[in-house]
């Protein structure tokens, strides 16, 4: 058997759901004095699945907390079969887990669980995203008065923005605290949740609709500070600049923003 064919047979053994032996492949192998071929191949087969399941258990601990160990293992095992790893780094193995949940489970269960998986993946993305060049309050203090109206900002690279239609944050928090499962229910209206990393620590918070709208104006659509003030004037009248500055200070303190590239 040529090298490539031997390796493809080995790969097929590892990817096979059950550790059933391909007798043709097994016949190309030898064991040792007290380690037979079946046991040797089972060691590799078990290690392949165990390693991938460990990654999912780590990256989706809140999903596991919700489902319990057995149901999570069944779901994760199905994912391992359906979505074998494509990236050299295990860090990316869970990338398709939320989408897989939507496709794999009945709809009434899948939507909230997939949202929780997306939330956990957002933390994974924020964890090792580029640092960017976060604005500081000192940067803002040095901004000349004439530059304020035209000020444009962008998210720092770690910011992940999620629309939460369920109480996923409460479930995530309960999982981290090892508390009682709070139950799953829809939230109305949907919440906007930000996940990001600031000074090497992952953070999150939900936004009230008005603040989410203000951030959408300044960050998502690239509006300048003057446009934000104009938008806020509808609600806050002459208090609009004060509200805009209050939020902007909060966003800068949180480490959410950097200068928008020209």
């Amino acid at each position, binding site marked *: 058997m040529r090298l490539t064919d031997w390796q493809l047979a080995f790969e097929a053994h590892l990817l096979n759901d059950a550790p059933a032996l391909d007798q043709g492949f097994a016949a190309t192998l030898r064991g040792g004095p007290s*380690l037979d071929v079946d046991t040797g191949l089972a060691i590799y087969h078990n290690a392949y699945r165990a390693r*991938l399941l460990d990654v999912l258990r780590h990256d989706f601990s809140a999903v596991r907390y919700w489902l319990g160990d057995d149901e999570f293992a069944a779901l994760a095992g199905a994912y391992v079969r359906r979505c074998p790893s494509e990236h050299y780094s295990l860090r990316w193995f869970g990338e398709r887990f939320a989408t897989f949940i939507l496709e794999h489970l009945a709809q009434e269960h899948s939507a909230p669980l997939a949202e929780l998986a997306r939330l956990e993946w957002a933390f994974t993305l924020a*964890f090792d995203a580029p640092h960017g060049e976060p604005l500081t309050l000192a940067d803002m203090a040095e901004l000349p008065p004439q530059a304020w109206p035209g000020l444009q900002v962008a998210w720092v690279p770690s910011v992940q923005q999620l629309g939460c239609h369920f109480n996923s944050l409460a479930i995530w928090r309960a999982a981290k605290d090892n508390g009682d499962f709070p139950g799953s229910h829809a939230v109305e209206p949907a919440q906007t949740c930000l996940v990001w990393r600031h000074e090497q620590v992952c953070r999150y918070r939900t936004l009230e609709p008005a603040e989410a709208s203000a951030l959408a104006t300044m960050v998502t659509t690239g509006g300048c500070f003057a446009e934000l003030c104009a938008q806020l004037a509808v609600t806050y009248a002459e208090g609009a600049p004060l509200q805009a500055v209050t939020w902007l200070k909060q966003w800068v303190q949180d480490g959410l923003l950097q200068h928008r590239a020209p």
Partner: protein
Amino acid sequence: MATSLPFLGYGLGLRNEYYEQILEQSPAVDWFEVISENYLVQGGKALYYLDAIAERYPLVMHGVSLSIGGPHALDFDYLKQIKQLAERIQPAWVSDHLCWSRGNAHQLHDLLPLPYTEESLYYVAGRVRQVQDVLQRPLVLENVSSYVRAKADEFCEWEFLNALAHLSGCQLLLDVNNVYVSARNHGFDPWTFICNLPPQSIRQLHLAGHRDYGDYVVDTHDHPVCDPVWALYQQTLAHIGPVSTLLERDDHFPPFQELLDELAKARQLGASALAGRALCA
């Protein structure tokens, strides 16, 4: 048969469980070995600590995903990232494993054994040369633990390693525990393996623990080094002279001091073996 390769002393595998203690305590560790893939990211805590530790300690890069013997094309994007990381932290050398970890279609994330055939030898040697051309440095390859062997083997493992080093110019990371594990599993003499390697090519040693299931042994890196591996380690140093030694732990992480104590044991046993060697010279 002393090697002229640089001797870094006694090091530990850098693991995130110990980042803060390393920076706070500046422990008496001569160098750290980093898992390359853990730092092929664009930012975050891991890179932050890596940069801080790189300022204080010599580092060596150790990869697990090169898949030098795999049936796929070499991943030049991955190699480019390895090279960029090497430029960032200036490791003393860059290592990976003599194995394959990626199949035709999927990443398998394991250190899978190669058949030790002439076909494998020339295939791997060619790829090693390509990697070395990209990295602009010798590649250091580690012997892996194995649980099956190919009936098609035309060489024993140490013959294959010798020939590969000769053909490709690669250097060797001799994992003493892996030799012990494979020797138990396949029924060969571990000392025959080690004493038949080219000493001038051995750049580094690994020490680690394993799980002994009686009929076979599994390389788990979740226990302290066992006595037979310590004995083999001393025999190895007495044979080839000072070689940079690295203690690995990848699971069941003990309190940091326990790991430092185990490293101190490596240092003491290593010094003893080297002193005995000097007396015999």
